[in-house]
């Protein structure tokens, strides 16, 4: 990890009334890695992720993307800067087709007269690209790209949401509890998907409560506690019980992890 981090945060503070959700927290994401963010309930990891994905504005502190300071006023702005988020709720529109969902909010218009004056959508292009993106991730057993998302299973929907993020996220993908609602087999499929996305060089922030999943895929683990980054550990050097102990305050993290 000698390279410069792609996404950093320094000294983020966020208050909700008298509750301090973020207390001078830092955050670093390096190119091409999967960084897991773990923490107890109420530790402030959702707030941290929301600050990075543009859903909230921190009261203090600085976020830098590729070294440049950024100030996102909405998730839309973060998206335009290249940060895609796969929300726990997936943010898919059930009645719309797979292709429509993948291009929701960034549709492709036809070139020429029809697109310019009648704002006609280029359906063929959108369906072709959607199909390509899904087959990139090995999801192309889909028979009908025009199929409504509500007719898909939970894992398939997760697949569509991940494919959407992977297709458009140019810099960072954030995944919030991607396996929380899934069964064993579907979780496996999604974990494989996450690694596929990483193998293409895309850094991923993974928020999860599932320690086995975190330890399986993460390159580094950011432990969040009491509104700040407690330590960053390498899953190869520590056990799941260690991580849980740090997270809950049962055990002091070692000095070298604190410095990370």
């Amino acid at each position: 990890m000698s390279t410069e981090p792609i996404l950093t945060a320094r000294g983020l503070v966020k208050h909700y009334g008298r509750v301090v959700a973020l207390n001078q927290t830092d955050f670093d994401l390096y190119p091409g890695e999967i960084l897991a963010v773990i923490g107890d309930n109420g530790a402030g990891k959702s707030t941290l992720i929301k600050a990075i994905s543009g859903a909230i504005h921190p009261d203090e502190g600085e976020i830098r993307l590729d070294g440049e300071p950024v100030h996102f006023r909405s998730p839309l702005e973060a998206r335009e800067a290249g940060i895609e988020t796969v929300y726990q709720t997936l943010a898919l529109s059930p009645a719309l087709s797979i292709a429509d969902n993948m291009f929701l909010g960034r549709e492709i218009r036809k070139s020429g007269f029809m697109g310019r004056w009648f704002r006609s959508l280029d359906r063929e292009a959108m369906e072709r690209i959607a199909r390509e993106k899904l087959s990139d991730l090995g999801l192309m057993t889909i028979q009908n790209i025009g199929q409504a998302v509500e007719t898909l299973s939970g894992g398939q929907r997760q697949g569509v949401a991940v494919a959407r993020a992977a297709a458009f996220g140019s810099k960072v993908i954030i995944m919030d509890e991607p396996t929380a609602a899934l069964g064993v087999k579907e979780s496996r499929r999604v974990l494989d998907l996450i690694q596929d996305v990483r193998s293409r060089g895309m850094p991923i922030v993974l928020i999860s409560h599932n320690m086995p999943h975190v330890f399986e895929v993460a390159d580094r683990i950011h432990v969040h506690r009491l509104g700040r980054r407690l330590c960053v550990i390498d899953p190869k050097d520590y056990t799941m019980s260690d991580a849980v102990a740090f997270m809950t305050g049962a055990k002091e993290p070692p000095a070298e992890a604190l410095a990370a």
Partner: protein
Amino acid sequence: MSEAGGAARRGQEFEDGLEKSDASVAAFESHEKTILDRLQHFLHGNPTMVPVIVLLLSIAVFGFVAGGNFFSAFNLSLVMQQVSIIGILAAAQSLVILTAGIDLSVGASMVLVSVIMGNLAVKMGLPAPLAIGVGFICGMLAGTLNGFLVTRVKLPPFIVTLGTWNIFFALNLWLSGAQSIRSQDIDATAPLLKWFGESIRIGGAQFTYGSILMVLIFAVLWYVLNRTAWGRHVYAVGDDKEAAELSGIRTNRTLVQVYAVAGLVCAIGAWASIGRVGSVSPQSFQEANLQSITAVVIGGISLFGGRGSIVGPLVGALIVGVFNSGLRLAGVDVLWQVFAIGWLTIIAVALDQWIRKVSA
């Protein structure tokens, strides 16, 4: 971590049991279905087929029951003429219902706009095109007011439009003094207002410009809803507003635009209604809002938003027209027409609920 994307991923112990299991989790396979399942899936994918089938069946049945008169080209074009205003209002209503809202004010805003157009052109002597233009702007403003109250003040659409229905109706009575503008006065000063009442004959059929306008409005809305990004956003907002917001759609802006366009369509309907009625009548179309909702619901657009095709309400309006015309020609009392439409509405919503329960 160097095994990214590799085949030899380490799984977890408890997953060993998966080895011999069916691995086709993420496959989008289809499995054995009963005929009823297939029908449910077909209707889920083609929600307009129900009203189309009902329309064709009812034409066939009434043609058989009511005899040759019903089947005449003249009578069928007359049905179109009779439903043209309700059809146009149903088009406006569909937009709002697709966003999971409802607009009780469509009829009242239409009559209000027709009174504004009549007052400006006939009583104040403004050029008719200007009066019509001002009417269109008023219609859009009325819709924008609804949209503003729904999105910014965050009131339920039912309450907002219940309120504006009454407000528009009161304004209409105030502006018109509860008096009609007579047909002769319109002919003398602003005949353009009655333009949509004129008609062309094709064979035995007589199509008023108003009924052609209705079909045109549906054609334009079909294009907008299915072939533009805005149209997809309307569906997405009605389907799941929060998901649409997170997908990067400015949902409140889309909603205000939907109400404004609905108001504009009502205003176009106001111009057409002057031609249809032949005068500007502040007391006309009192039940138009409920009739437009009936047409939308029979047309298979879900009241819960996000589902259904814009073609449906056109077919729904025609079904209502065919039932009324057929039962009348068959010599059945008017009350049974209302009775039949009532049942049709309930059956349509029940079907919608069944179709929504579709599963893979």
